């Protein structure tokens, strides 16, 4: 089983470990709900070293990424600016979702999912055929996400003067290499914070210093409830190669203009858009019981399925994302039925976003 450079740190904090797609990762350190609240109310940290960092460098780097990604890196003008995008295959399905950081037109950094690493690297290299780019996995970093209203202040207490200056005025969705750290204002929780790439040799000490600064270690369990409250997709669950980004609430990540930009999957996506697709909606259930992935959903327009569901610790009731037929029944305010423990219960359809910056957005 793969181990991250922080594996020993997890065991020191009494983590309960699970096999996460071949990685021995912490699911929680006692209470997933307490960890969730720490991120919403103070500061928590996640070991995300299992994620894959890939640098794309070369004369054609920009042209390559404009072809590879449904979102358009031409929108990235400022140094360090980041963009969320899907990689779409010839059939209009999602190969993976990722964040791309722009340094200059010949130099970009991607962060892709761990569970799809081999597939992604193969895809990146396949699409690179004919472009003057080199695709280099960066394995010398650990990565720690520090998230929550007090995350920046607590993590910042570990930074050197130069690092503090580098991030002082950094807006959301930027990244900067500052001395030995790559510090980005990105995350997967709906809270402010940093994702920090730290050289492996320093990773364990850095983690311990964050602990001393009052940052609570959080496992994959809390990571999942936080991202779902924030309405963020999980690859493999809310979308995969068989699902159109248009049916995964990723329409906003497809940049259609300029219309002469060719990108992977474009012609199929245009057909899907013209024909219409299913929709990924949010569901809310305010009674006792938890909506869970795989449960059947009925709307006014037909049947669908819950892709992700959980109890929302912040809201105190259950929330879910579900893929359902487009139509009146998929609109916010509509009522749908979910089959829960052999009974059909009524749920409310909402936009797939539930909590931001500690507060309900319902």
């Amino acid at each position, binding site marked *: 089983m793969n181990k991250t450079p922080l594996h020993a740190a997890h065991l020191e904090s009494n983590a309960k470990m699970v096999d996460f797609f071949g990685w021995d990762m912490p699911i929680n350190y006692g209470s*997933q709900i307490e960890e969730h609240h720490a991120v919403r109310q103070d500061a928590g940290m996640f070991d995300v070293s299992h994620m894959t960092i890939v640098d794309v460098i070369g004369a054609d780097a920009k042209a390559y990424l404009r072809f590879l990604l449904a979102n358009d890196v031409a929108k990235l003008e400022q140094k360090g600016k980041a963009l969320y995008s899907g990689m779409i295959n010839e059939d209009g399905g999602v190969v993976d979702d990722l964040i791309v950081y722009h340094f200059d037109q010949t130099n970009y950094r991607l962060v892709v999912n761990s569970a799809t690493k081999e597939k992604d690297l193969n895809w990146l290299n396949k699409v690179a055929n004919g472009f003057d780019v080199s695709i280099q996995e960066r394995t010398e970093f650990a990565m720690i996400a520090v998230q929550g209203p007090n995350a920046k202040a607590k993590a910042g207490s570990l930074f050197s003067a130069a690092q503090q200056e580098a991030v002082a005025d950094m807006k959301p969705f930027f990244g900067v290499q500052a001395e030995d750290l790559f510090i980005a204002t990105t995350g997967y929780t709906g809270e402010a914070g940093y994702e920090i790439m730290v050289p492996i040799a320093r990773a364990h000490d850095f983690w311990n210093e964050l602990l001393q600064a009052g940052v609570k270690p959080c496992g994959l369990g809390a990571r999942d409830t936080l991202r779902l409250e924030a309405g963020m997709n999980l690859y493999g669950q809310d979308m995969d190669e068989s699902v159109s980004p248009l049916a995964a609430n990723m329409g906003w990540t497809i940049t259609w203009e300029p219309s002469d930009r060719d990108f992977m999957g474009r012609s199929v996506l245009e057909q899907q858009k013209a024909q219409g697709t299913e929709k990924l909606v949010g569901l809310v259930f305010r009674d006792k019981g938890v909506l869970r992935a795989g449960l059947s959903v009925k709307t006014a327009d037909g049947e669908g399925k819950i892709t992700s569901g959980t*109890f929302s610790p912040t809201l105190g009731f259950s929330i879910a994302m579900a893929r359902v037929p487009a139509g009146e029944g998929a609109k916010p305010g509509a009522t749908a039925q979910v089959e829960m423990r052999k009974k059909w219960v009524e749920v409310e359809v909402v936009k797939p976003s539930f909590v931001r910056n500690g507060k309900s957005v319902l």
Partner: protein
Amino acid sequence: MSNVPNELRYASTHEWVRAEGDGIYTVGITDHAQDLLGDMVFVDLPDVGDAVTQADDCAVAESVKAASDIYAPITGEIVEINEQLEDSSELVNSDPYGEGWLFKIKAEDEAELESLLDAEAYTNSIDED
């Protein structure tokens, strides 16, 4: 290592039973069960006055991870439920043998207790899991 108190009896389905006298028995789920389920978010208890039959499902413990049926370890009548769990289901995690108890049963036939496991047998059963 799970905590399995010696003085209790256990069902193989991870409920514990404590004799309170007068044929009344308190029921909860074991430390092992709460650990497997993770943070509890709802506990759906039977109503006082309900008749329950040994090995029938009579309550639901819903955690962040899964919904799990709870089975009546003995036959009888529900005489009390732990109303604190309505707002504080986490007590099942923090104190499964104490404040996290679920309900009390007035046993119909106390001889049924003999069919339950003692601490040693229950410990062996979870070691095999």
